[in-house]
């Protein structure tokens, strides 16, 4: 009694809808089976997809955007777009990386849209930086806030590359894949963005101090 649009899942479920959740809860639904369920438009597969990868996507977006009240909406938008294009994805092993690239693209659009709107998008209460985390020193929190203020002054592609490389800690190849560019291109982008970041930071006493410390740390 399987509808034709629902894949046969190995657990021989009593109901297809329950199957995905049961398998997911048991940690048995691997990415390949999840992708098959998504491509077959299984009714519950989007929820499983979201629960599995939303924390990752939110983390990547937060790395890029910092404290931004729009992050939850952007997470949703990234998943919407992924689901709309899920038929184009063949390799289940690439599911997470593919989704990451989509999320990065949505973040890029958001940055550009926010910039076009100038100050207007910056003045919402939720767009302002939150108070520092409970165990963060004021100095650290201020440096992080200035870091994202510096990012705001950079072209979208450059800030994204910097954030993924140095805040998220991605490898160069991962940054290139997330940004959907070649390794050579991302290296050039990073070189440009690092130089620009330093130029911006030189005018900021707090970031300047952090860079100075990093220099000392590097030379030790």
């Amino acid at each position, binding site marked *: 009694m399987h509808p034709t649009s629902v894949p046969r899942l190995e657990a021989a479920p009593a109901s297809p809808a329950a199957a995905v959740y049961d398998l997911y809860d048991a940690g048995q639904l691997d990415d390949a089976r999840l992708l098959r369920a998504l491509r077959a438009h299984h*009714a519950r597969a*989007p*929820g499983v997809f*979201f*629960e599995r990868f*939303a*924390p990752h996507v939110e*983390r990547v977006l*937060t*790395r890029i955007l*910092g404290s931004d009240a729009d992050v*939850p909406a952007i997470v*949703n938008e990234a*998943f*919407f777009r992924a689901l709309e294009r899920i038929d184009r994805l063949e390799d289940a092993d690439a599911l997470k990386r593919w989704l990451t690239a989509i999320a990065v693209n949505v973040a890029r659009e958001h940055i550009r*849209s926010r*910039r*076009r*709107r*100038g*100050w207007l998008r*910056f*003045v*919402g*209460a939720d767009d*302002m930086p939150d108070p520092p*985390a*409970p*165990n*963060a020193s004021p100095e*650290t*929190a201020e440096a*992080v806030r*200035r*870091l*994202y*203020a510096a990012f*705001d*002054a950079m*072209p979208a592609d450059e800030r994204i590359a*910097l954030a993924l*490389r*140095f*805040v*998220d*800690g991605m490898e160069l190849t991962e940054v290139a894949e997330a940004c959907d560019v070649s390794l050579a291109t991302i290296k050039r982008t990073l070189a440009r963005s*690092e*130089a620009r*970041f*330093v130029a911006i930071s030189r*005018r900021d006493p707090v*970031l*300047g101090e*952090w*860079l100075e*410390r*990093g*220099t000392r*740390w*590097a030379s030790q």
Partner: protein
Amino acid sequence: MGEPMSRIEIEAALTRVGKEAARLQDEELPPRAEPGAGARFEQAWNARRTAPVTPIRRSLPPRAAWGAVALVAAAALVALWARPRPLSFSVRDEAGQVGAWMIVSAESVPLRFSDGSRITLEDDALARVTNVTQNGAEIVVPRGHVRATVVHTPTSQWKVDVGPFVVDVTGTTFATGWDPKEQVFTLDLTEGSVVVTGCSIRPQLVHPGTSVRLRCKQDSVATEPTGQTPILAPSAESEHAEAGPAATETLDAGVPPEPAPSSPRKTPDLAALPDRAVDASVDPTWLQLAARGDNRAAFAAALPQFDAVCDQGSAADVMALADVARFAADSARARKALLAVRTRFAGTSHAKRAAFLLGRLSFDGGAFADAARWFETASSEDPAGPLARESDGRLIEARERGGDHAGARAAAQRYLQRYPSGPHASLAIQVLEH
């Protein structure tokens, strides 16, 4: 930072500050999705898939004129009767849906709102109503033109997002549009006044009888004089900034910017502005400073106009004012601005956020009972909103710190029921075990 840094030094420094940023972010980010997040996403996904993209093709069906009059009268009655409820609207004879895209492929299509306001989508427009409140609505128009007749009330709040520009409306008649191909924004104002923002221009108060034509590309704004069209200038900051994207915001060649106002920090008393087509004395300096993260400077610049903004500014402006005061550690003024939002924009999303921020201010000031009341208010006003979980969590803290242990236990129980793996779950468990 006197000597040039090597690439290795730069990357080491970036790695260091980047790691700190990641560490702070990870303290706030949930390790896994909240229970039920998948199901909620499925609902959103299904709504997205089924949201109609309404092709509106032929002309209006023949209707007697008195029928339209009856509709308007009925809408007015409904508005009177159902005042506290959000406005409703119709697209031709069908109930309008918030969030549904409308593509106008022939002739014009009127959206009739229950307060008597009307937004008419012109041929080839792409638009959707993204939010409706009891005081107005927000309409997004990525392409094409609209005509609007907005009924004025003391609390009217309408916003039309036209391409990269925003037209804030309290009550007026105007036509506006955005040509994405040519990147041109147009506005013809017949009655009332509106404020135009976007594309880094100063907030521009536009008066009746005015036609505005603006071009926005690559983060720059240029005016295109057409007859009596006034010139709108970009912000002074964008012209004089030393670096960053603001430095790239230039006027197109041959289009002179309007001279900077002689008293740039004059209180923006909109009612007292001289009767010019466009007045550039509404100074956004503090807003732009805030946008750059320089909150101390923003606060200093905002101080001379603090009360005026609280009394007359838009909800977004007053919220921004509260933020710069908060980050400048002037909690008394931050509180004043937030209370102004609560009073002037009751029921809006801004007012809900203001409740949460008032809670935080009270908490930070040690007024825990007051903080608890605000967090409770924030949660009850927007139980499914983005700040609900945080409000519920902070409510536990506020009650516990304020000595209301029974209240804290009740809040903790409620929190664990709603967010068993939320960031305040461990605190909630501690409170219950204690």
